[in-house]
C-alpha cells in the first residue's frame, strides 16, 4: 500500500500502460482522478470493479488533449476540488509512424499539440496545486524511441524527447518544493497502440536485440511508475528511467 492517503492524477488511463498504472495505483490505495478522452460504460465498469476491490476513490474525468479549452477546464476542475495532488502521471499520448520525408508539418504540429503542448498546459495548471502542497511526484511517460530514434518515428520521437527535456528542466525548478519530476522511457510494450503501429517483423527483430528476449507487459511499466510515485524514490529526480528489457543495438 505504497500510495495510501495520496491523490494521483493520471492521464490516458483507459487502455494500455495508463490503464495498468490506474490499476496498480488503486491497488496501492491511491485516490485517483482518472483522466480519459471518453468516459464509456466499459471504463466505468472497470473503475467500479477496482474501487470495490481496493476500497479507494477514483473519479473519472474527461480530458481531451486535442481541445485546449477542455484541458484548461479539466485541470481547473481538479484544482477546484481542493484535494491536494501528490502525484501527476502524464501518460496520454498518440503515435505516428512515417518516414521523415513523409511526415507533414501539419502532422508534426498535431503530434506536438497532443503529446507536448496540451500536456504542458495541463501540467502547468496541476502544478499550482502541487506547489502549495509540496512533497509531490510528477512522472512523464516518454519512450525509448525518444532516445534511440527509431526509423519511421521522427514525429513521435521528437514529441517524446521534448517531454524528457521538459521533465529535466522542471525537476530543477520545483525541487525546492520537494517536488520530484522523472520520466519513464518504456521500450516495446504489449499494448494495442504498439501492436497497431509496429510491424511484427520489427517486434521479432527487436526481441533478439533485447537481453530479456521479450517485450514488456504494461504492468512492468506501471510498477516503475509506482516506485517513482512512492516515497521509495524520495531522492530520485530529474532522471529518465529506461524500462526496455536490456534493449541493445
Amino acid at each position, binding site marked *: 500500500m505504497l500510495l495510501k492517503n495520496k491523490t494521483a492524477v493520471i492521464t490516458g488511463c483507459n487502455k494500455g500502460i495508463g490503464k495498468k498504472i490506474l490499476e496498480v495505483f488503486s491497488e496501492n490505495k491511491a485516490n485517483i482522478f482518472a483522466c480519459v478522452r471518453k468516459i464509456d460504460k466499459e471504463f466505468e465498469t472497470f473503475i467500479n470493479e477496482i474501487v470495490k476491490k481496493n476500497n479507494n476513490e477514483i473519479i473519472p474525468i474527461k480530458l481531451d488533449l486535442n481541445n485546449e479549452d477542455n484541458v*484548461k477546464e479539466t485541470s*481547473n476542475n481538479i*484544482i477546484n476540488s481542493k484535494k491536494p495532488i501528490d502525484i501527476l502521471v502524464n501518460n496520454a499520448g498518440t503515435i505516428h509512424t512515417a518516414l521523415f520525408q513523409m511526415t507533414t508539418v501539419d502532422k508534426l504540429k498535431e503530434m506536438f499539440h497532443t503529446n507536448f503542448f496540451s500536456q504542458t*498546459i495541463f501540467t*502547468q*495548471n496541476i502544478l*499550482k496545486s502541487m*506547489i*502549495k502542497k509540496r512533497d509531490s511526484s510528477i512522472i512523464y511517460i516518454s519512450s525509448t524511441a525518444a532516445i534511440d530514434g527509431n526509423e519511421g518515428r521522427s514525429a513521435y520521437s521528437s514529441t517524446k524527447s521534448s517531454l524528457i527535456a521538459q521533465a529535466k528542466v522542471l525537476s530543477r525548478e520545483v525541487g*525546492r518544493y520537494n517536488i520530484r519530476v522523472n520520466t519513464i522511457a518504456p521500450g516495446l510494450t504489449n499494448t494495442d497502440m504498439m501492436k497497431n503501429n509496429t510491424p511484427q517483423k520489427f517486434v521479432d527483430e527487436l526481441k533478439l536485440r533485447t537481453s530479456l528476449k521479450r517485450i514488456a507487459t504494461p504492468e512492468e511499466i506501471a510498477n516503475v511508475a509506482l516506485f517513482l510515485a512512492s516515497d521509495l524514490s524520495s531522492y530520485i529526480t530529474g532522471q529518465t528511467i529506461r524500462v526496455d528489457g536490456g534493449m541493445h543495438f
Partner: protein
Amino acid sequence: MENYKKYCSAFTTTFSIAGAKMENLEYNKIEEWDSIGHMTLIAELEQIFSISIETDDVVDFSSFKKGKEIIKKYGINIQ
C-alpha cells in the same frame, strides 16, 4: 477598496514590502521579485481571489499596476 487591500496584501506577504513603495513595483526591479518570487505572488493572488491565472497572463503580469488590469480580467475590480 476591499479588493485593493487584498491585492496589496499579496505583495506584502510575498515581498515584505508595504505602503506607497508598492505602486511603482515592477518585475525584476527588486531582488525579491525574481521569477521564483513572481510565481509565489501569483499563487498568493490566486488563493486570495479564488482565481486561476492563465499562463499568458502570468507572463504579462509585469508590475503592480499592470497586475491590477490583469486581475480585472478575472472579474475582480481593484481600485
